[in-house]
């Protein structure tokens, strides 16, 4: 039996084409809206225009596209920015990840859990804190969404200690909310089990519904620095990421990207991964836990910024050649590849995290999502697994 389901509020929409057999999902294919032609729009423009155009791929992770463009252009120009510029980029990119994860949990996961019987949680307090962390981006980038403050050569801003102090104050406020409402500071899974917060409540709910271990993936991960296969890691090489018609593969294999891929070797997430493997709960845990990781990262990075360094150094972009970059966007690896002739873009390719997680494979070689949804019966649970990958429709239809 074939069934088509419209999934809304995934930064746009997606259609899931399910094939059921004896009441169980045997296969799923994902269909998004048609492409919006960003790569085509970039052709024929000067290289620096990409800094304005690519953020417009996505309203929630446009900043990652900006950083990916900056790095690809710097690679093309063989330029290394100052540590100060790098630190500021790390701060703003981490802020983007935090606001994304907060919105994902409160606007896409909790409402669905509510449909499954979990308590109703208003999203507005979390939205307010998501806005607060965006203020930190705006302190350096002028605005969010859609700044173009990161350039080939560094960053356009020239902050003083005033901005650093304010950024720290705002970050600490978000941290306070995070620890009070979502997840206390924990050092082990044991501590998590005796902690308080929405993530713990989610855990108990999923445990009661026997949903902790649904949505098992393929134990195949990719981050911007490492490719992990059955626990073993090797250095990530962009040239091994191949985009085909409706799928993206790494050396011919499907890979999972995102918060779980980034954190499954680290700290408490490592413990969770050992217990639950790459399942629904591990993905939810990793993404919520990562908010805390990113908050700490921002606080640390703000301390290291040396204001006496250059924010920006001029880079000649009247170049011919090829540049590429891979960035950890909120939802996983984001890849940009640019080719130019005499400073004019002749080709621009973007591969987004959702394309990696939601590829369309075959019955004998399913993609990560297809594997994760296999044999589920309840469409709501299948949707929950689908959303656990933090799907971005607009990124997929760049």
């Amino acid at each position: 039996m074939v069934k088509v389901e419209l999934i809304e509020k995934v930064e746009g929409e997606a259609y899931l084409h399910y094939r059921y057999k004896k009441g169980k999902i045997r296969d799923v294919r994902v269909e998004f809206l048609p492409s919006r032609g960003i790569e085509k729009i970039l052709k024929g423009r000067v290289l620096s225009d990409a800094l304005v155009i690519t953020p417009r791929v996505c309203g929630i992770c446009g900043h990652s596209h900006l950083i990916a463009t900056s790095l690809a252009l710097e690679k093309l120009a063989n330029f290394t920015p100052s540590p100060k510029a790098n630190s500021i980029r790390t701060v703003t990119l981490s802020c983007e990840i935090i606001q994304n994860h907060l919105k994902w949990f409160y606007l896409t996961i909790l409402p669905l859990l509510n449909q499954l019987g979990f308590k109703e949680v208003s999203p507005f307090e979390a939205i307010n804190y998501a806005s607060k962390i965006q203020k930190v981006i705006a302190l350096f980038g002028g605005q969010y969404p859609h700044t173009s403050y990161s350039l080939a050569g560094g960053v356009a801003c020239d902050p003083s200690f005033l901005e650093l102090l304010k950024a720290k104050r705002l970050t600490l406020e978000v941290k306070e909310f995070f620890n009070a409402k979502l997840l206390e500071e924990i050092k082990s899974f044991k501590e998590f089990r005796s902690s308080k917060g929405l993530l713990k409540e989610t855990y108990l709910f999923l445990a009661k519904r026997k949903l902790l271990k649904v949505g098992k993936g393929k134990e195949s991960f990719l981050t911007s620095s490492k490719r992990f296969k059955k626990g073993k890691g090797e250095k990530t090489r962009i040239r091994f990421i191949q985009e085909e018609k409706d799928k993206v593969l790494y050396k011919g294999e499907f890979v999972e990207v995102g918060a779980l891929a980034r954190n499954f070797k680290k700290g408490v997430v490592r413990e969770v991964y050992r217990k639950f493997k790459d399942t629904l709960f591990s993905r939810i845990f990793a993404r919520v836990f990562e908010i805390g990781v990113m908050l700490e990262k921002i606080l640390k990075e703000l301390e290291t910024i040396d204001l006496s360094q250059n924010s920006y150094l001029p880079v000649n972009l009247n170049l011919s050649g090829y540049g590429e970059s891979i960035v950890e966007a909120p939802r996983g690896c984001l890849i940009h590849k640019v080719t130019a002739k005499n400073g004019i873009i002749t080709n621009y390719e973007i591969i987004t995290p959702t394309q990696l997680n939601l590829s369309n494979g075959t019955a004998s070689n399913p993609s990560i999502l297809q594997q994760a949804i296999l044999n589920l019966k309840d469409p709501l649970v299948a949707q929950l697994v689908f959303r656990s990958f933090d799907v971005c429709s607009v990124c997929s239809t760049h």
Partner: protein
Amino acid sequence: MEKLIWLQGVTCNGNSHSFLNLEGLENFLKKFELLYHPLLPSKLSLPQLYNTQCDILVIEGGVKKGLKRGGVEFVKLFLSLAKRAKRVVAVGSCAVYGGVFKEGDNSITGVLFDKEEKTPFFKKLSGKVVNIPGCPAHPEWIAFGIEGKDFHLDEFYRPKELFAYTVHSGCSKNEYFEWKVDSKTFGEKEGCLFYELGCQAPYTRGSCNKMLWNGVSSKTRAGIPCIGCTESSFPKRELFKTKTYMGIPANMPLGVPKRAYLTLSGVAKSFKIERLSTKLF
């Protein structure tokens, strides 16, 4: 209570996310019955929207024939809602002029305008449309479009309350503009971005420096040239370089005759203001 639907055409979701940054969002939304928003919990699903009566229709994204939303032809869905609505708020430059995606598909238009030309919807809808351009639009602008009244609209149906100003008004680099002290490079507090680095703020309408972004800053305050995102010409080409004609910026500050500009800038340039020619600290 007025019913509100937020519908999307060809978009990046940027305005939906910008709107979430509205201070007091929860209380603002309490004034409306939110039938649909692309991110927020709302009463209806997309396939239920066709022919629904709403009082305020917010439209984000460009209008494109053939695009489907929730299984329904987008143009048909949009018109079914727009004709019943009391007010249509076109939010973001895509919904106002066609926007960034028009660069790749010329058939995409705004609700009332296709760049500067009137669209076929103009006659039917112009009486109830208010345009809030920007890429994205500022959350306060969006809120004003939704609940404001007695708008003073300009020729592009933008409220003058927001768009009678230029982005230049209130820029913290204004003194450098006044005394013609250029920024030669990015990453510095000092200098104006208008002369070399492509800033379009003096001829772009918007209140980015009047009501700050995220409550804290703006592009130009953070050293980024204004990219003119509230205007029909967005996105122009070579956005980080000022087009010049015989060494003079090709685009004048809004409404300023070239002769007046040249006279004034010549005088300003003839003085060297020590405080403005050295690092602030």
